[in-house]
């Protein structure tokens, strides 16, 4: 074979090898847990049986929960898109001041566990609300809290996931070159019209990515409907699953498996819809000029700034203040004042309680590790899905939704079923180590990295890669030197989402942790359950402060990163 032919063969081997390596990896992370659940649902104990399936499908509660899940997921998504989307547009395209600080603050609530947010809002609307008492609108003791309702759930879901839409959309908007907006303005169009006819259509990929993520997140969220739905007797699929699990009895795992698969089916339907909407449309931006010049708001600037900041304060500061105040009192319900304030909770958590310290290190390493690994997988994965249109990967793309959509407790059960016995060839057991949790995180959060990256690819002009190809660069080199820098803003948005979500997550590690492999969520949860809310709040406060510190520290080496990579740095 001639030299040229061996080179061609090597290229083909590289590309095919990479493709099938990715297929294997995604299949391992997504299909394996699902497959195990299907087996558990339809063939528990090794024998094919449709009893669980029949029981689940015949129960009217199943369908009530399904309907409720759909309604809250869709409404929550709509709210999140409206809020997150408008904030992204305002923060990225206009000339409001302190844009970076605002972005920073708006993204932080992703770090605060949903139940903490729920509790803070409950107190805001409840009879003991300081704020309401101040303005004299505090409801009388014992009156029904309006948040214990479907509307309350939708409100909190929307607020919880607005930063998600914000992050993906902002990454997309940063890629928008100024000429496109200027052309519209020059043609005499009003800024709002330019927004509607030029900006939003081009922003369809990141918007749709945000919508898809949001929908699946709302569908699979357990904390908020658990907190607000149970008292209000509003049941959704995740809480129904938990209920079944609490009920025990024979066949409970099968029922739980089938209900989780139901959630998965709904999630996949949502994604198929998204795919369909994006078909055959070109969103590529071919010019390489600098970021869009902001729209000028003129006399609207101050009111808009006030509005945005009050919103950020409401959404961020409120729950955080709730955490902070609870962490400083000796026992729940004691009012906070100079006499009662104490740092004893912090002392206990930081000094005495060894598990808390371990949990910090574990959670940090696992979340950062998962974020990094997932992004590293998603960049070539996105390449094959968007540009090579590999059919195998496009199908797996759908499968990646499932481990994220299903309740964390079910994914944990699947992981237990899979990894309880030692691995076949290597004879090493992942069970009761950090590695089973890492596997669960990789499986669960893969989609959080994939959606933003795919939308990033849809916005890049492929001639940039073709130019590198012609210059002689093989696929691995192209991925590293040309493609990754271009898709970096989207990838970082994804990595951030993964880190923030994994750092505090609870439902997965609640079943998988073991001594030495504690996570922050687990430790906070066990404090809460034991009635030690003050310790829980202290730990949660420290978590928030540490994360803020980490995020701030990224600005230190922001200079060396390409433009647009960090969402809070222009």
């Amino acid at each position: 074979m001639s030299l040229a032919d061996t080179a061609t063969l090597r290229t083909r081997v590289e590309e095919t090898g990479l493709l099938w390596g990715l297929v294997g990896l995604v299949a391992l992370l997504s299909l394996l847990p699902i497959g195990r659940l299907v087996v558990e649902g339809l063939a528990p104990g090794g024998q094919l049986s449709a009893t669980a399936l029949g029981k689940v499908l015949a129960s009217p509660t199943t369908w009530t929960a399904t309907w409720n899940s759909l309604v809250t997921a869709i409404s929550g998504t709509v709210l999140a898109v409206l809020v997150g989307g408008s904030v992204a547009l305002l923060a990225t395209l206009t000339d409001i001041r302190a844009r970076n600080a605002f972005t920073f603050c708006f993204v932080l609530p992703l770090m605060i566990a949903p139940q903490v947010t729920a509790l803070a809002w409950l107190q805001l609307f409840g009879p003991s609300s300081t704020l309401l008492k101040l303005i004299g609108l505090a409801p009388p003791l014992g009156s029904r809290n309006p948040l214990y309702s479907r509307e309350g759930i939708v409100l909190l879901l929307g607020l919880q996931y607005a930063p998600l839409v914000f992050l993906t959309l902002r990454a997309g908007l940063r890629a928008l070159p100024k000429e496109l907006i200027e052309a519209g303005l020059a043609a005499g169009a009003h800024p709002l019209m330019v927004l509607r006819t030029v900006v939003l259509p081009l922003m369809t990929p990141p918007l749709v990515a945000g919508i898809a993520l949001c929908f699946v997140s709302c569908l699979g969220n357990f904390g908020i409907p658990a907190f607000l739905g149970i008292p209000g007797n509003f049941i959704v699929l995740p809480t129904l699953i938990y209920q079944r699990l609490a009920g025990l009895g024979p066949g409970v795992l099968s029922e739980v498996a089938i209900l989780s698969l139901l959630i998965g089916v709904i999630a996949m339907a949502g994604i198929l819809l998204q795919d369909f909407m994006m078909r055959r449309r070109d969103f590529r931006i071919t010019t390489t000029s600098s970021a869009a010049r902001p729209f000028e708001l003129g006399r609207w600037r101050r009111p808009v700034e006030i509005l945005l900041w009050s919103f950020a304060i409401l959404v961020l500061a409120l729950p955080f203040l709730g955490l902070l105040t609870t962490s400083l009192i000796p026992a729940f319900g004691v009012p906070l004042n100079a006499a009662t304030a104490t740092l004893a909770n912090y002392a206990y958590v930081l000094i005495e309680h060894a598990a808390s310290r371990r949990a910090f290190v574990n959670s940090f390493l696992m979340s950062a590790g998962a974020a990094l690994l997932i992004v590293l997988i998603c960049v070539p994965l996105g390449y094959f899905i968007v540009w090579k249109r590999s059919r195998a990967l496009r199908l797996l793309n759908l499968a990646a939704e499932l481990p994220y959509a299903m309740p964390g407790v079910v994914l944990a059960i699947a992981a237990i079923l899979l990894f309880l016995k030692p691995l076949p060839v290597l004879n090493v057991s992942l069970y009761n180590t950090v590695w089973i949790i890492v596997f669960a995180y990789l499986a669960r959060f893969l989609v959080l990295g994939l959606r933003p990256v795919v939308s990033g690819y849809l916005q890049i002009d492929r001639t940039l890669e073709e130019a590198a190809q012609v210059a002689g660069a093989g696929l691995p080199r192209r991925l590293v030197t040309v493609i990754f820098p271009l898709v970096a803003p989207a990838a970082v948005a994804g990595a951030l989402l993964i880190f923030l979500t994994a750092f505090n997550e609870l439902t997965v590690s609640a079943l998988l942790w073991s001594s030495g492999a504690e996570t922050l969520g687990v430790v906070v949860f066990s404090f809460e359950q034991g009635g030690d809310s003050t310790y829980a709040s202290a730990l949660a406060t420290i978590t928030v402060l540490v994360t803020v510190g980490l995020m701030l520290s990224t600005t230190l080496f922001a200079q060396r990163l390409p433009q647009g990579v960090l969402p809070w740095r222009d």
Partner: protein
Amino acid sequence: MTTQTRRNVLAAAALGALLATTPALAQAPSGKLVLYTSQPEKDAAQTTAAFKKAYPNVEVEIFRSGTTEVMGKLAAEISAGQPGADVLLIADAASMEILKGQNQLLAYPGAKTEGLQEGSFDKDKTYFGSKLITTGIAYNTAAKEKPTSWTDLDKPAYKGQISMPSPLYSGAAAIMLSTMTARPDLGWKLFEGLKANEAVAVRGNGAVLKAVATGEKPYGVLVDFMAYNARKQGSPIDFVFPKEGAPAVTEPVAIVKTTKNEAAAKAFVDFILSDEGQKLALSMGYIPAKPSVGSPSWLPEGTRINVMPSDIAAVVKVTEADKARFATLFGN
């Protein structure tokens, strides 16, 4: 062989056989012991520390989570064919009864059950209550009313101000539901009244505690130790044992059938049921299962709690139906 020699040989053989067949009795228990528990973390830590003092050669590993999570994990492990726990210490006997029914528990006939409260342990000796956790009415110190009986909660003055743990999500609450609805003086009428009074069923005792302590819902159905521990730390909360009696759960301990360390597991059960173990429970603020050990500090001297007895086996039979009825009543 002479008769004397034969006798010696026999004696030696008998002694040897004795020694050979009872090595466990001759040695102290050692090795690893895995405990799955739903106790609050501090209590679990204290229990295992105390156990380790008594049996220093045993290495205890704890998995601690909510009852649902612990049972879910165990169910998955059983389904995968390799349960990881040696001993269980969880908050509701109903789950234990179900596990017993699935033949997952090891009977320990040699357990010392003298002095334990009547009905707190399984008659087949597969699980044993470690303490008594009663449920009563907690109320915020600033609340207008001071309830004294369960039926007070049905009064109009309490409308919209009550919370209770949901039996759909809490095994202990499910036992309470079945116990109370079986009583003629309370029955379903009590719960229908609660529903009419807009009582809210929340996810667990923790949520009830929060609601009462903040005054959001000033009256709540709550477990005793949680209310008293909170009060000790300064929370504005008070607790009362209603006139009709307080339903109790026992937080049983049991040995898993597939345990790899039977000796250590039995030692653990022994420890829990021993005076020392019971005194430990007392010091943690619980009512011990062995009344002779004493009563916790928060219980006024000489008070006899009117404990509502629960027939666990009967409860397990009706629990599904009761929960379904509760769900319909409270509008699921």
